[in-house]
C-alpha cells in the first residue's frame, strides 16, 4: 500500500511535528516543576507557579495591556486595510503595480529595521514612545495582510452584485455597505483573527516603541534576560494556551463560515 517514498515522507512529517511541539510541551511541563531553577530532571511537582501567574499584577497588567493594544490595532488595521483594498480593487489603473508594491512594503521589511525606522519616525513627528506608538507600529505592519486577504475575497465577488444594487437605487456607499461588506465578512473575520495574533505575538515593535508599561512578550523577554525560572514558564504557557485557543477557534469559525456562504 505505501511506497517507500510515502513512508519516508510521512515519517519526516511526523518527526517535524514532534520537533515543533516538543519544545512547547517541555515548556508546559517545566512550569509544574517545584524548584526555582529550570532544568531536568524534575523531581517534584507543583502548581504554585500557575497560581502565582494569576496573582502577579505585573503579568496581569501586561496581559491586559497587550490585549488592549491588539484590539485597537486590529480595528484600525481592518478599517485601513479594507479602505486600501477597495481602492486598489480588481480595477486596473495607471500606477497600480507601484501602489501595490508600496502597500506590501511593511510586510517585507526586516522586523528590526521596521521597528527602528518607526522609532525615528515618531520622534520626528513629535510622538513619544508608548501605547499610541505601538498601536501605530502594529497597524502599519498589519494593514498589508488585511488588504491582501480582503483583495483576494473581493476578486471573487461577481461584478453583477454591485451593479444590481446600484440598479435598484443604491449609491456606491449603500451598495458597499449592504452588498460588498456582507460578502467580505468571512475574510474580515480571518483578517481580524490574524491581526490579533500578529499583534499579540509581536516583540520588536513593542520593544522599541513601548513606554513604561511592557506588553507581555516584552515582559517575558525582560524576565528571561535575568534568568530562567518556572514562573516564566507558567506565563508562557498561559500565553500559549490563549493564542492557540484563539487560533483554533478562528480556524473553525472561518471554515464553517466558508462552508455556508457562497
Amino acid at each position: 500500500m505505501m511506497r517507500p517514498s510515502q513512508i519516508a515522507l510521512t515519517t519526516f512529517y511526523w518527526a517535524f511535528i514532534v520537533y515543533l511541539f516538543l519544545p512547547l510541551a517541555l515548556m508546559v511541563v517545566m512550569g509544574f516543576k517545584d524548584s526555582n531553577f529550570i532544568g531536568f530532571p524534575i523531581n517534584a511537582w507543583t502548581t504554585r507557579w500557575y497560581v502565582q501567574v494569576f496573582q502577579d499584577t505585573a503579568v496581569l497588567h501586561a496581559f491586559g495591556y497587550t490585549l488592549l493594544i491588539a484590539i485597537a490595532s486590529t480595528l484600525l488595521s481592518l478599517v485601513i486595510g479594507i479602505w486600501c483594498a477597495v481602492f486598489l480593487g480588481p480595477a486596473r489603473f495607471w500606477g497600480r503595480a507601484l501602489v501595490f508594491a508600496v502597500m506590501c512594503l511593511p510586510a517585507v521589511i526586516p522586523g528590526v529595521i521596521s521597528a527602528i525606522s518607526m522609532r525615528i519616525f515618531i520622534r520626528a513627528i513629535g510622538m513619544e514612545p508608548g501605547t499610541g506608538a505601538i498601536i501605530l507600529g502594529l497597524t502599519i505592519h498589519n494593514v498589508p495582510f488585511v488588504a491582501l486577504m480582503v483583495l483576494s475575497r473581493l476578486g471573487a465577488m461577481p461584478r453583477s452584485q454591485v451593479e444590481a444594487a446600484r440598479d435598484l437605487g443604491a449609491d456606491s456607499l449603500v451598495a458597499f455597505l449592504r452588498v460588498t461588506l456582507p460578502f467580505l465578512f468571512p475574510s474580515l473575520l480571518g483578517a481580524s483573527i490574524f491581526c490579533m495574533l500578529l499583534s499579540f505575538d509581536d516583540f520588536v515593535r513593542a520593544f522599541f516603541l513601548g513606554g513604561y508599561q511592557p506588553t507581555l512578550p516584552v515582559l517575558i523577554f525582560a524576565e528571561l534576560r535575568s534568568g530562567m525560572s518556572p514562573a516564566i514558564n507558567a506565563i508562557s504557557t498561559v500565553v500559549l494556551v490563549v493564542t492557540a485557543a484563539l487560533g483554533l477557534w478562528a480556524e473553525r469559525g472561518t471554515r464553517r463560515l466558508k462552508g455556508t456562504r457562497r
Partner: protein
Amino acid sequence: MATTSERTGNDAALIRPQDGTRGFWTRLTANPAYRQASDLLLSSDRRRFWLLAVPALIWMFGTHLGPILTMIRISFMDSYPPTAGRIPEMTLENYLLFFQAPNYITPFVRTFVYSTCYTLLTLLLMYPIAYFLAKKLRPGRQMLFLLLLLVPFWVGEIVRTYAIMILLGNRGFLNIVLMGLGLTSRPIPFMYTGFSLGMGLVYLTSLYMLLPLYASLEKIPRNYLEAAADLGAGSWTRFRRVTLPLSKDGIASGCVLVFLISTGYYATPVLLGGPSTTVFAETIAGFFHVAGDKWPEGAAFSTIMLLASLVTVGLFLRLLGRRRGNLLG
C-alpha cells in the same frame, strides 16, 4: 402603492406615514443632506476614485515610506535628536563608521552568511513537508495536517524562543536524553552558539517557507505528472524535470520571506545567541539604547542593512530568473 412621478430621476420618494415605519436604509437614502453629499461625492467614477485614492495614498506613502525616508535622512546628520540652537550638518561620517571597525563589519557579514545558510536549511527541511502535504494527501486531510503545523506558530516568537532554550540548555531536554543514553558524560553547551541560533531561527521561520512552497506545489496539476509518467519518466526524473521547476515561484517567495524575516529578528539572537554570534540587529539596537546621540549612526547602519538585504534579494531573484513580482503569493 402609488406609482412614482413621471421624472426619470426616480427620487420622488413618497412619504406616507400610513405605510408603516421606515427602515434605517430608507431613512438614510431619503435624507436630503445625505442625498446631496452622495450626489456631490459619489456620482461619478472619477470622483469616487479620487475620494478613495487620496486618503489611501496619504496613508500608504506616509506611513510605509515615511519612516524609511526619515531614517535615511537622519543617517546623514551629525546629531539627532537636534539640540536646541544648533543646526545639524549633513555628513557621511555615520556610514564611514561602519567600515572602520571589525566589530561592526563582522556582525554584518555574519548576519548575512547565517541568514543565507539558515534559509537554505529551512528550504531543505520544508520542501519535503510541503511536498508531502501537497502531493501525498487528499485535500480534506491536507487542511488538517496543515492546521497541525500552524498551531505552534500562533504562540509568538518570545514563547517559542524560550521553549528552544529549555530544549537546548545544559540541563535541558536534549542534554538529559544524550546523557541518559550514555552518549556523553557532560552536558554539551548547545546554547549561545550558532547551532542554537540556527535552530531557533529555523524553528521560527519554517512556516514562512512552508506556505509559499505548499501553495505552488498544490497548483501543479496532477495530470502534468501523469503525462510525464505516461511518457516514460521515472519518479526522480518527474520530480526533477516537472515538479521542481514548476515550484520555482514558491521556492523564490519562501526563500525571500525567510531571509528577510530572519535578518530582522532581535530577541531570538539575544536570547539564543552569545557574544560570538552577535548579529547586526543587535549592533543596530545598541545605538538606540543610549539616549539620544547615537541615532544617526544607528540609522545609517539600518540603511546599510536594508540596502544589503534588498540587493541580496534582488540578486537571488535574478539568479532564479524571475523579476521581482508579488512576493507574498
